[in-house]
């Protein structure tokens, strides 16, 4: 469904590339994980895919058709993004209702009276949340709003950039469950970027590891669970994640 070929991004002509020669494909209904440490370029890949970075080299194909670097408006009906920081990604002075309706307004679509209520239901928020401002909600609730907003246009592809790393583990569990439910209900195709191997192992079918702007390793979830990824860097990440994780259970 999504095909990325030889993606390259550099932020200055004389600077080394931030992303170099990244290629992968994601099938319909699949969740694809991009893991790596800070600065490896994983978020940049996602931003280039989402059209937030227009100056990239290489090609992004959606259902076989190459996308122009400046994405057409119709693209955003199909592809939506959820960001890491639920404090930064919502407008502080707009009600939740106004923010949920904005995607519909941008697409010049009808705004049925029930749209906001239904969206809030879908992410498990009370309908009264429509009249709140972001500062009146907790971090987990805000992330639910951000997910509701991404789903307003009924997209079939969701790009998730560290959707739970600003949240407590208890709230992270709720959001991950919600994402898995929505994914099953709507047959969503997802790309999840995270630094947390456990989150990626939990959510993703296939996983690629990035280092220094390149994909150095890729494997499916079963390989990761069995602890069998071959690349030394993946092994290092796995060892570091498990060294203080999972305890006796690991």
């Amino acid at each position: 469904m999504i095909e990325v070929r030889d993606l390259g991004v550099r932020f200055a002509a004389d600077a080394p590339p931030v992303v170099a020669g990244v290629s992968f494909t994601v099938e319909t209904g699949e969740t694809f994980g991009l893991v790596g440490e800070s600065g490896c370029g994983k978020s940049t890949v996602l931003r280039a895919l989402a059209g937030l970075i227009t100056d990239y080299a290489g090609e992004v194909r959606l259902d076989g058709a190459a996308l122009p670097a400046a994405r057409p408006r119709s693209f955003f009906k199909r592809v939506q993004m959820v960001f890491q920081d639920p404090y930064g990604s919502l407008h502080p002075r707009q009600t939740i209702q106004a923010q949920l309706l904005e995607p519909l307004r941008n697409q010049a679509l009808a705004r049925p009276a029930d749209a906001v209520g239904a969206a809030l239901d879908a992410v498990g928020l009370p309908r009264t949340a429509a009249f709140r401002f972001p500062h009146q909600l907790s971090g987990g609730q805000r992330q639910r709003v951000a997910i509701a907003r991404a789903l307003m246009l009924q997209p079939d592809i969701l790009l998730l950039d560290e959707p739970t790393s600003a949240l407590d583990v208890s709230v992270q569990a709720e959001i991950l469950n919600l994402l898995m439910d929505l994914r099953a209900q709507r047959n969503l195709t997802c790309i999840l970027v995270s630094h947390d191997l456990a989150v990626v192992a939990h959510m993703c079918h296939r996983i690629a590891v990035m280092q220094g702007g390149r994909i150095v390793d890729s494997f499916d979830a079963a390989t990761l669970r069995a602890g069998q990824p071959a690349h030394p860097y993946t092994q290092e990440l796995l060892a570091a994640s498990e060294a203080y994780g999972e305890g006796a259970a690991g």
Partner: protein
Amino acid sequence: MSATPLTDAPLIEARNLRIAFGRGEHAVPVVHGVSFTLGREKLGIVGESGAGKSTVGRALMRLLPPAARVTADQLAFRDIDLLAANERQMMALRGRRMGLILQDPKYSLNPVVPVGDQIAEAWRLHHRGRAGAREAKERTLAILEAVKIRDPARVARLYPHEISGGMGQRVMIAMMLIAGPDVVIADEPTSALDVTVRLEVLHLLDELIESRGLGLILVSHDLNLVRRFCDRVIIMYAGRVMETLRAADLDRAEHPYTRGLLASLPSIRHGQDRLPVLRRDPAWLAGAGGTP
């Protein structure tokens, strides 16, 4: 409290510590009667955001804003009553006897001063009178070497933006240790670091704490981290201590809150369809460590 025997008198003793913001009827209590002691050991304080764990850490150094009201039956560092001490005594205590490491070196270091000068400044501040520039410099290089920075003379000349996050946190540790404190309060010291760097910094901190026989309070939201690095763990929820237990016994924790937190962690090795979600019981607020 835990029955872990302490080899000597406690470094820090807190009994029924209560903290509220604001005055009179509008006061918002955030810590409700927390008690613990710290010996020469590594004590973790774990909880979700808003549990009051950082507030407790700050209260020990009296670094809370003026609107905070701190009361306790006892709050002492060795023989010094932290509630009665005047600001002058606190100034002598902060840094010199109790060190603090914060989460993000990017915000804790002065961006326009080379890191070596910042470490030297910390040393001179705490050794007034005998603090020659040359000695301060030698001490700086020695402490940078102690925190395993390979080329101390070069790194000392760098500015904070020229060093990595892991190196920045080593510099923070060096700056804190150079004053020679007895107790270190580390507030989420590795949360801003990548997982591979995190381990290195923790090993380093662990080694330095052990070899110098210091007491450590590690404030963290990360159960796994605390489980690996601490001797004892205090689990806090909504300003109360839910339970205190040996870190090695965390898997056998009995409190439903602790068990809920542990269960909600996704696992690399074990696939699950759904993660168990924490059910918060209002009875927790009345039960442990609550109203006297």
